């Protein structure tokens, strides 16, 4: 679901700077988040993504810059006066209250509601997250997944303009995490509230988000939709962080580029993100190249090499192939088609690849 770019942004961050003493946590963040969007802040730990989320929630003040929510300047507004609600990483379920009291916690301020209306809202919210009938349980009698659902219900019952999720799935096991990912997407579509998710898990961000901002060292490195982020990473850091990429030394001269192991090609053939001169770096994803088995032919280009490592995954096999003229082996992922043998280490291999899948990066970055 992608929205027209001219939609008035719900959240507008301008020139956000945040210092903790000497430490520069956020370095000039400009960001627009659209209404109804599922937006992710993705990055390694310490990149400032959680700080940015807490800035939107109001738990962290900014050293410079403005936070606008729904057209109103919220830069100096405390969290209890902001139209945002948060699902905390630890879920922050009140241990002294029952499930229903937890979910109804924020409704006490709503003087327009009587007790019966509040109870109905609490029950509806529990129903929405699949916890109908759990209202009278104590908060300590819940599993991790259930606590997460209570935290969601507690935030959503207040109908915030923005729901902030701070690594909400990191404490769950793999199966539960996948289930909750699907459920979060369903919930988001159902309620139509803007979700902002903080995560260090690139897969989670790709699966769930409409748009993703990748952050490094307090800056947004790239802001794009999931597919664009994967296919056209803006620099080497983003390419490495999102999925896997093989990097090969390359050298540009004129309108041609020579990539170690792959050979010579025209710049115009590449999916180039950086035009440059001299020594640089080229990259391609493991699934964009294939190993040719005996008798197979291809219309793609072919590079020669030797299989140096085989990792068998059941449905997939990862091969490390040392190409001629390149010391660093490249990783190739192959689907294990029925009847096809798994190659052994030391086998001579032919690699079919296409220049269109090769990205050229600025040297170093």
């Amino acid at each position: 679901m992608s929205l027209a770019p001219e939609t008035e942004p719900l959240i507008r961050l301008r020139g956000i700077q945040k210092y903790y003493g000497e430490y520069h946590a956020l370095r000039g963040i400009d960001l627009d988040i659209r209404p109804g969007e599922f937006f992710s802040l993705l990055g390694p730990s310490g990149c400032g993504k959680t700080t940015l989320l807490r800035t939107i929630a109001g738990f962290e003040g900014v050293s410079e810059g403005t936070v606008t929510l729904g057209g109103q300047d919220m830069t100096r507004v405390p969290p209890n006066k902001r139209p945002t609600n948060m699902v905390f990483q630890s879920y922050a379920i009140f241990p002294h209250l029952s499930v229903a009291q937890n979910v109804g916690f924020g409704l006490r301020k709503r003087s327009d509601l009587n007790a019966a209306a509040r109870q109905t809202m609490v029950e509806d919210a529990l129903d929405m997250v699949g916890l109908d009938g759990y209202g009278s349980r104590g908060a300590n009698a819940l599993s991790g997944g259930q606590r997460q659902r209570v935290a969601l219900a507690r935030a959503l019952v207040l109908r915030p303009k923005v729901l902030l999720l701070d690594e909400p799935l990191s404490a769950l096991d793999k199966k539960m995490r996948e289930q909750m990912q699907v459920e979060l997407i369903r919930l988001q579509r159902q309620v139509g509230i803007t979700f902002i998710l903080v995560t260090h898990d690139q897969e989670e961000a790709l699966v769930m988000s409409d748009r993703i901002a990748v952050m490094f060292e307090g800056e947004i490195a790239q802001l794009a939709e999931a597919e664009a982020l994967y296919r056209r990473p803006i620099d080497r850091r983003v390419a490495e962080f999102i999925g896997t990429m093989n990097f090969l030394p390359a050298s540009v001269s004129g309108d041609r580029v020579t990539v170690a192991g792959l050979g010579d090609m025209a710049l115009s053939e590449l999916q180039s993100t950086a035009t440059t001169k001299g020594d640089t770096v080229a990259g391609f994803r493991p699934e964009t190249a294939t190993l040719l088995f005996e008798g197979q032919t291809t219309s793609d280009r072919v590079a020669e090499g030797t299989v140096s490592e085989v990792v068998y995954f059941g449905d997939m096999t990862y091969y490390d192939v040392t190409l001629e003229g390149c010391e660093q082996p490249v990783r190739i992922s192959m689907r294990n088609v029925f009847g096809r043998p798994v190659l052994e280490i030391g086998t001579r291999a032919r690699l079919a690849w296409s220049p269109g899948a090769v990205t050229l990066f600025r040297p170093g970055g």
Partner: protein
Amino acid sequence: MNQDSKRGLTLIAPPLAYALALLAGPMLAIVLFSFWTQDYLTINRTLSLKNYAEALSDPFYRAIMGRSLVVSGSVTVITVLLAFPVAYYVSFRVRPDRKSLWLFLITIPFWTSYLLRIFLWKVMLGYNGVVNSALTGLGLRDEPLTWLLYNANSVVLTLSHAFAPFAILPIFVALEKIDRSLLEASRDLGENAFTTFFRVTLPLAAPGVVAALLIVFIPTVGDYVTPAQVGGPNGMMIANVIQAQFRDLNNAPLGAALSVVAMLIVTVIALGTVWLARRLSRGT
């Protein structure tokens, strides 16, 4: 009995025997004495409720018991009320690496003996004491104040000071255990700092507060050193009377009965406090 519990019992046998000999034994002796009667120099060992009748009906004992409860109740309330902000400050405001230093400073009064601290209060509050010298020296008063020492107020003051760390530490521990994200969650859900305190912080600190109330109340009801030293005749408490029965008045059975009555009253109040706190902290 399985192997594990046998081994456990063997392990705790020495302290258990010690505790039984020095706690349960004397307790039983006290209870037994309380049903006997003093017959001038000898003890009449026929069981009777005469001592209890006297302990509960004599207006003097009732007044002293009542005063003990009021003094100790005041000490408890004052100490816990003053201890809470200190514990809160150390837990919430002091930098994590400075907390042990603060706790260390709080326990410094324990480096001097209880008796010495009481004498120091006498020095502070006495007729020629620090407070009076200061007041007269500064010309604020012509005559030294006489109501500072030897009354119930000085007992409350001395005991509150002596028991402050006992109240601060359990409250501090309870506050430390509160997950700070709960306070943020409360802010996030629309409560301000003030209402968050009453809806989240205080209910979660309740176990520590109850522990502090009991730790201060139970021993202070039975304290006899402080009232004996700074209480004067109007600051006398039940333990002083019990001591007098055992020693000066040579009526151990009555002293025993007064002890049992005092213990029962304290037990009932303690259980009532726990029950009330449970009810209050459950749900808001």
